[in-house]
């Protein structure tokens, strides 16, 4: 087959994508390397998520759902803090406000026929859009069933509702309920176990619960300590409380 001619406009669009992808502006970058193009003092440190000032993506009713649902997904109990106490709702909020929420790295070009399960995510909604549509639908369905939005119904009813979404037995008018639940569960677990710089896993609650050592650099001396408890507390990319001011 003959290759299609490439329009100038398409090339420019693609060039822009490449530049944005790497954080390199075309004007500033020396893209032809003779020698090692190593840039001293230019490490790509992760950006600490600012969790101050409340929600930035979720509206008030949406935040009410997220907080209520997170409290059921990982409850606070005798084992320790749950998802809410660990900051998962704000973690999800910030993730949806950023690259992940916009599906920046995803292929989001149509057409959009319904696919097989083995073909994966085929919604035209970005993650942020899916949360918005799903929460509205959930509160509508809950309103019809219980005369109250999700966050106002009893915990056992909330659990039953979430199980219905998980199994697909509860359907939503505008969103694939299983696709939403799968994403939400994944994001809750991310918020509970990711490095605290992203706003979740507050005080390393998730890591302390299970005994994960965190962002440790050198664990050589414990490799052969068969059956012995690991003696050090978890540490994050920004250190840990009592060791650095910003952890």
């Amino acid at each position, binding site marked *: 087959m003959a290759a299609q001619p490439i329009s100038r406009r398409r090339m420019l669009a693609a060039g822009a994508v490449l530049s944005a992808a790497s954080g390199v502006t075309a004007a500033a970058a020396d893209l032809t390397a003779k020698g090692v193009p190593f840039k001293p003092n230019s490490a790509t440190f992760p950006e600490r998520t600012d969790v101050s000032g409340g929600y930035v993506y979720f509206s008030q009713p949406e935040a009410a759902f997220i907080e209520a649902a997170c409290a059921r997904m990982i409850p606070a109990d005798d084992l320790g803090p749950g998802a809410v106490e660990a900051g998962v709702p704000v973690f999800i909020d910030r993730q949806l406000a950023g690259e992940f929420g916009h599906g920046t790295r995803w292929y989001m070009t149509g057409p959009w026929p319904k696919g097989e399960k083995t073909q994966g995510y085929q919604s035209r909604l970005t993650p942020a859009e899916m949360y918005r549509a799903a929460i509205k639908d959930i509160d509508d369905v809950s309103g019809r069933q219980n005369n109250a939005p999700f966050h106002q119904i009893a915990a056992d009813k909330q659990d039953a509702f979430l199980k219905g979404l998980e199994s697909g037995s509860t359907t939503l008018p505008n969103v694939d309920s299983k696709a939403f639940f799968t994403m939400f569960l994944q994001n809750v677990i991310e918020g509970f176990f990711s490095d605290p710089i992203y706003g979740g896993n507050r005080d390393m609650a998730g890591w302390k619960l299970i005994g994960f050592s965190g962002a440790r*650099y050198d664990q050589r001396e414990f490799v052969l300590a068969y059956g012995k408890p690991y003696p050090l507390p978890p540490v994050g990319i920004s250190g840990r409380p009592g060791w650095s001011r910003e952890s």
Partner: protein
Amino acid sequence: MAQTLPKTDAVLIGFGWVGAMMGQELTDMGLNVVALEKGSWRDTPTDFATTFAQDELRYYWRHELFERLNHETLTFRNNDGQTALPMRHLGSFLPGSNVGGSGVHWNGQVWRFLPTDFQARSHNVSRYGKAAVPDDMTIQDWGVSYDDLEPYYDKFEYLCGVSGKAGNLGGQIVPGGDPFEGPRRRDYPNPPLDMPYAPMLFAKAASETGRHPFPHPAANSSRPYTNPLGVQLAQCTFCGFCEKYGCGNYSKATAQTTILPVLMRKPNFTLRTHSEVMKIELSPDGKTATGVTYVDAQGREIFQPADLVILCAYSLENVRMLLLSDVGKPYDPSTGEGLVGKNYAYQITSSVNVFYDDKILNPFIGAGALGMMCNDYNGDNFDHSGLGFIGGGYIGLMQTGARPIETHPTPNGAPTWGSGWKRAVAKNYLRAATISTHGAVMSHKQNRLDLDPTYKDALGRPLLRMTFDFTDNEHKMSDYLTDRAAEMGRAMNPREIKVNKRAGSYDIVPYQTTHNTGGAIMGANPRDSVLNTYLQSWDVPNLFVPGANAFPQNAGYNPTGTVAALTYRCTDAIRTHYLKAPGQPLVHA
């Protein structure tokens, strides 16, 4: 109108592991080499330093080191009865992007295929009869033998400073190594990594039940090592962030840690990043590549003429580039004609979780290729009579670092969320381990790659379309491996095990392996292969296509060692034969 640059001796399309090996060898021959990489430069202290490399969310779940699918992806269907739809986000496999390619985020699992793997058809037919290979199973012999590749496997292992224990030194079986491996000329350059508790518990159970466990060969350095190019690797510190991550400690062998510090300084080498090749340009008779057209960061179309074109992107992209460039004839399963896109294969994986009450395993202490393995059920190391399948895979217990978003195993019956889930995760995280199986996929008539009729990439080119499903052979083989893994798991005397078989159609969502193979396969003659055994195009002799695309079918091992060995065999042939008669076929059809 494309701008035309001065001609170069050789142009590399893509600059990952294979690109770096090719660049190093071709510049050694005195050639002027230009590498075109669509992504950007990246390096250890800037992109994955030890102060921030251990970040599960950023690197794995937000895909920082991987292909950006908004730029290009592929479409997928299980069979011709379905419409292929785009892979909209990554899942089953994780191709890399930027300098170093997927080699930056690999585990460092360095395997040699078995001698009989290279005779997949003739060996199985001679041992089990013609009926052992069904008509629609399109497996082939490779056209090279293990002995042909042995020197090149050795070269790669010494480049990487692989840590391991030989099991077969020149035909002598060595205790503690893999007794099933082909003969090797010398031991690994470094001794095995220190082995944590869980893999040792597995090894004990495997031995006691008659299997032959040995330490996984690891491109994670067990001690300080200076490779033959003079590049230093540091001792691995078991941080547990190898697979899907870059190594901040210069312990994992990658293009960056083994070749680039030497290659980048050579005056006859040039790297152009943000340069995406659109197509390979051919002479009017279609028999010579004249160079490549690429698009730079500013969207300019540029023609880079070259005497020698090396297509060394990821295996899937290599196949797409051939199709986009009209090199060879696309495969049509209905007629059996054409070869480009034929024999796409993958691997089939499964696992068995082992849960203890009384043993603390500290699973977060890990390295990419750290574990105890057995090859008793790989390839044709066991009698397949009456089993109804051919091929096999390794079984082993690896401790790669239990990053908790990805790894928090729970036993049968545990809830998937809520307070019961929390209790199960808290109880089991430190006391669980996973035995994995890693099985071959044979090539089949319907499993293939071609260009999608509907979906396009950001540059307007058709996406690659993958048509793939597991067949009976894979399911029977994987179930057999999983049953053996469960036996070994029970022999570890845990509280309980959980068996995770791979059931049903291939699903592109859950992560499995980034071991996509075939589509531009090698062989002994042009009637059934796209490339000769030196990875030279039969149709366009000044074009070489090194990569896992050359595998006629997949084996039960990680592919990188074999990709590297084939690449070094290719560069040797270019050095000793091709350059004396440039543009001529190295093998006459």
